């Protein structure tokens, strides 16, 4: 574990060197912000969540033990925090009688997914983000950790506290759901690829 330079930085921080914490912040800021954005779904909430993650990291120095790669440890904090944020948001919406599934499915524009053979990149990106948002939180988190953050199955499983086989199952279900949601665009994308 000591071969991980970020673990060394964290251990240095634990001994009282605040500059080591600032260096860790600098290295992981963008990744954690991007991760939070993909989980909580709004820019403002994502930035707030990312800052909370780093504050939790700061508080964690008293009990920190280098039991895994540092990135796994940090993503574990981030995943737990974002999933808690989502749970609180959904609880509040449910209390107000908002149908969460319908709200997500129609997306910010309020319109149903368009059936077009070829779409502009921005619209396609928007559909992709909406499809990600429709996933259950844990499926989305698993998919984001492996596909976007580059964690291995083992690391991602540790981050969200499941077994590796449970993680593979989450990812499989997430991908299957995404393929169903994005089927028209998958075919269009494949057609465009063959045309090239």
């Amino acid at each position: 574990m000591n071969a991980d330079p970020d673990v060394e930085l964290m251990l240095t921080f634990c001994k009282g060197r605040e500059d080591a914490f600032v260096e860790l912040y600098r290295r992981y800021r963008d990744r954690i912000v991007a991760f939070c954005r993909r989980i909580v779904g709004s820019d403002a909430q994502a930035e707030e969540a990312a800052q909370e993650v780093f504050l939790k990291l700061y508080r964690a120095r008293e009990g920190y033990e280098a039991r895994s790669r540092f990135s796994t440890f940090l993503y574990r904090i981030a995943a737990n925090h974002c999933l808690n944020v989502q749970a609180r948001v959904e609880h509040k919406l449910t209390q107000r009688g908002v149908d969460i599934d319908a709200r997500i499915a129609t997306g910010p524009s309020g319109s149903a997914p368009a059936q077009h053979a070829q779409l502009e990149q921005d619209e396609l990106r928007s559909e992709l983000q909406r499809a990600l948002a429709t996933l259950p939180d844990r499926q989305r988190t698993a998919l984001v950790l492996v596909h976007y953050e580059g964690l291995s199955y083992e690391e991602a499983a540790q981050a969200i506290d499941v077994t590796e086989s449970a993680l593979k199952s989450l990812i499989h279900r997430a991908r299957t759901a995404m393929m169903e949601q994005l089927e028209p665009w998958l075919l269009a994308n494949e057609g465009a690829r063959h045309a090239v």
Partner: protein
Amino acid sequence: MLCEETQERLAQRRVSGASDAVLDAHLKQCARCEQRAASEAALDRLLLLDSPHTPGPGFDTRFFARLDAERGKQRRGRVWGMHWAGWALVPIAAGVALVLMRAQPQKPATQDELLAAELEPDDVDLVLELELVEDLPVIQQLDELEAFELLEAVDQAELDKLAAETK
């Protein structure tokens, strides 16, 4: 290779990037699995379209302001911890004081107690009559009390009674 293995093998190849000749051979023979593989590959390309959100302006400034507040909170927590530790010492100190008070030497026994313990009533009268007051234990104790502070511990009323009885 069985179709049921396709999903797992596709996932492994996606993660490792390593080639899988057995999988490739099966995909050439199985249209359903080949379609599944094509959809998975298309999804991977689509997923790349999602660009990461970057922190907006002022993100660092806001964060370091919160970090300063957190540091202040931790410092105050340490001070309060010492404050509460101090208050926790009060009952401990009270307990120690009680123990010390109980351990102090008891007030000298009264003449009556001493006499009752050592002499028969008739003997007391005889001692007093013979002016052998210095033999009385209480007198011996009083003689031993050299410090004024200790003399103050003597019950004045008992002294007066003793003086009256020895006359």
